[in-house]
């Protein structure tokens, strides 16, 4: 079990960032990256449950093949709501704006991000975007799917396309602002001695993600602006009756939306690297390879968007090029899976909740990534695109992957953020239930997808009912697994054990400062003199049984 150290904290000035002002105003006008991280965390949690309730109703409806609760239109609006909310108001911001905001300065030994006021502004942009989107839902919803394909979205849909698109448009600028902030912070605020190749992989992951956010999101913004213009002003841009090409929208949309999936998964990979090393007490296997893999995924991820359009009417030669590049982008992901596995070799492994969630990520990401090979193959993709096979694939990565990593990080850094430890048994129960619930929900979807069950279907042929019933049962299990932390985590704020600086005995700089940290993060800016994950001497393995790291990253810790 963990060895908890009790610090006695001096009472004179505010002990930590949470004590600096208790009013709502102090929170809403803060420029403290830690508080902004918490503002984001509350926002995205709300959206996670909104998107979750939407799909809960959908999965309930899909238990019967002919529809019992909803009309066609209501169903279409619900799955669209699920997609838009989960992609842009949960997954894209999730790890970067919560753990990224909270931890980036701490991990590099800085007091703040480069642009603290921009950081607060980016949260307000997120909220503004959320307001537009919530309005579009309350006003009756949008039914185009989260992909807004033209000409349905511009000329045919009788729903609140403009409001929803405007919401996403504004939220996109929140992404860009966060990206600019993180890149500048990483370049310019690293502590003395914190060279690039001493950065924790979480920082590299956030850095790469930020580059993708800055370069990809504006293209989404323009594609949404163009459909808003077409719908609102009547100007024909994708209108085929005027010579416009609906496929142009698809190219512009997917040029962002494919890198977007890397925005969603790269930070998760960063979290997993932090957790595997800590709970196996091992240096990460192949640090440089892990860095280059992150960068490689970020770059090549910009070149594969056409694999979403193999049957859209794209040239077959383009199909082959995009297929080839899609196989190539899978290579660095595979490297990372192997390296995480090898990191366990000769470790001293323990199985607290963060580790269970991280292992869950590893398994589910592996399966999801392998099914990407199916989709990269043109003849298979032609058959399974727009079926549940694709739905299962991306849920394995985004939910099995990113959401598991989010919960892993939530439990790992909870003591640092709150100063309290969560209840370990309940957390382990949630982790295991998540994995089981996930497999039950999404494995059947691969089978019915290959058998020909299309996606976005309200009613469906009866032969598929058994798969839908199993999947819906899994969704029920998953919802329990996700609801449980909503109880025991707040509970720990009052009743959890207080922790000291480093309850896990981890090596990062964030663990050398009190839990919760003071407003300025460090009493003195640390000087870094050692590589990350120094859990044991180089060339050795983890012989230590205790929680203290062999060597934290700062010389005076």
């Amino acid at each position, binding site marked *: 079990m963990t060895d908890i150290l009790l610090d006695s904290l001096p009472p004179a000035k505010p002990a930590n960032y949470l004590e600096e002002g208790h009013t709502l105003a102090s929170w809403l006008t803060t420029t403290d990256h830690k508080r902004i991280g918490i503002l984001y965390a509350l926002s995205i949690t709300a959206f996670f449950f909104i998107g979750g309730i939407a799909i809960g109703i959908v999965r309930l409806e899909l238990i019967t093949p002919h529809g019992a609760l909803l009309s*066609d*239109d209501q169903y*279409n609006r619900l799955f669209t709501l699920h997609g838009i909310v989960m992609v842009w108001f949960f997954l894209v911001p999730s790890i970067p704006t919560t753990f990224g905001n909270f931890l980036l300065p701490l991990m590099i030994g800085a007091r703040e991000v480069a642009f603290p006021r921009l950081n607060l502004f980016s949260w307000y942009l997120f909220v503004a975007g959320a307001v537009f989107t919530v309005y579009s839902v309350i006003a009756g919803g949008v039914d185009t799917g989260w992909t807004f*394909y033209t*000409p*349905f979205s511009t000329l*045919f849909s009788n729903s609140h396309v403009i409001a929803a698109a405007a919401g996403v448009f504004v939220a996109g600028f929140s992404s860009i602002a966060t990206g600019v902030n993180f890149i500048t912070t990483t370049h310019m605020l690293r502590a003395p001695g914190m060279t690039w190749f001493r950065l924790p992989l979480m920082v590299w992951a956030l850095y790469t993600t930020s580059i993708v956010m800055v370069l990809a999101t504006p293209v989404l913004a323009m594609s949404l602006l163009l459909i808003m213009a077409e719908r609102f002003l009547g100007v024909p841009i994708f209108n*085929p*009756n005027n*010579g416009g090409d609906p*496929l142009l929208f698809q190219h512009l949309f997917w040029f962002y939306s494919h890198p977007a999936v890397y925005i969603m998964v790269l930070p998760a990979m960063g979290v997993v690297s932090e957790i595997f090393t800590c709970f*196996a007490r091992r240096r990460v*296997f*192949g640090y440089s*390879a892990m860095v280059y893999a992150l960068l490689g995924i970020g770059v090549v991820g910009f070149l594969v968007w056409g694999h979403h359009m193999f*049957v859209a*009417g794209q040239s077959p030669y383009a*199909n*082959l090029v995009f*297929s*080839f590049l899609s*196989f190539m982008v899978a*290579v660095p992901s595979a*490297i990372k*899976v192997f390296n995480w596995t090898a990191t*366990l*070799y*000769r470790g*001293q492994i323990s*199985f607290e909740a963060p580790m269970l969630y991280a*292992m869950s990520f*590893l398994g589910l990401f592996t*399966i999801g990534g*392998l099914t990407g*090979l199916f989709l*990269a*193959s*043109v*003849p*298979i993709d*032609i*058959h399974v695109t*727009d*079926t549940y096979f694709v739905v299962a694939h991306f849920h394995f990565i985004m939910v099995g992957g990113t959401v598991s990593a989010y919960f892993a990080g939530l439990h790992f850094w909870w003591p640092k953020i709150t100063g309290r430890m969560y209840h370990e048994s309940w957390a382990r129960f949630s982790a295991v239930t998540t994995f089981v619930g996930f497999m039950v929900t999404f494995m059947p979807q691969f089978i019915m997808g290959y*058998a*020909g069950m*299309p996606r*976005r*279907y*309200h*009613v*469906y*042929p*009866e*032969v598929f009912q058994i798969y839908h019933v199993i999947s819906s049962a899994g969704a029920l299990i998953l919802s329990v697994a996700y609801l449980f932390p909503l109880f025991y985590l707040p509970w720990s704020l009052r009743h959890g054990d207080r922790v000291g600086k480093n309850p896990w005995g981890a090596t990062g700089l964030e663990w050398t400062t009190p839990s919760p940290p003071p407003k300025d993060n460090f009493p003195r800016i640390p000087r870094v003199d050692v590589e990350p994950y120094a859990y044991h001497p180089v*060339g*050795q*393995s983890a*012989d230590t*049984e205790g929680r203290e790291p062999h060597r934290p990253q700062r010389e005076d810790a």
Partner: protein
Amino acid sequence: MNLSDFTAEASSHAAAVDRLFYVLVGLSIFISLAVFALVLLFSLRYRRGSRAKRGPMPKFIQREVEIGWTCATFVLFLFIFWWAAASQLSALTPPKNALEISVVAKQWMWKVEQPNGVREINEIHVPADKPVRLSMISQDVIHSLFLPALRIKQDVLPQRYTYLWFTARKTGTFHLTCAEFCGTEHSRMAGRIVVLPPADYARWIEAQPEKLGLAREGEALYRSLGCSGCHATASTVHAPDLNGVFGRSVHLADGRTVTADEAYLRDSILLPGRDIVAGYEPVMPSYRGIVSEEQMIRLLAYLKSSSIKQGAEP
């Protein structure tokens, strides 16, 4: 309806896709199990406080292993790409002498036209063992024709023809459905593809209410819409001769040379000002809003036939 309506291997292409699929399934199971097994093995053997040997790490581990599995992964993925691409390449060229069937998609049904003019709704009858080419267009939004038993699908676009071709090897009735979200009743836009032995197909065609054939109906439209008024050689209006025009090279006024395919002919009827033929004035009126998709199919069928006579009476 049962599962075999979806999962039958109704063509040799379907069988090839299934082969690739099941090999990938096997590979995925193998790799997943390997990863799971290693993680499980390491978790048990190297759990905190276990007595497994740790100590100094083997010298060769890091670099060689890293390079090794990177190369192995790269080569494996390259191989899968090659296999998939090779089976796709053979499907790239449309078959010669294919039976041409037209499909018009609209919210929320499929309108099908057999070459002799027989119409179907939400059903396509095809002969087995003969190449069939579907020429598809949408009247409104993007749809997608999905034939699970043939393992093929193609988006159907407005104002632009897309094509799907196959040779069905199994007789029977299989599922047909829409696979691109197209609005309220997207999930109700389903139907059937009926594969008949060639003799039965011929008999079925004969048994339908009498139709002239698409080209003959197109000829009637050619006259009634006034096309022959200008395009006949006896006409006083100087208009290009359309006899045998389909597939010919056409020199345009701006210097380009294009092939007169379906897209070109369709644009010439609906957007005549777009590509003016060299040596002619842009006087042709547009038939947008006058010619429906079904009429367009018939006109094109007529233009494709070589039966346009010189000096046919208007």
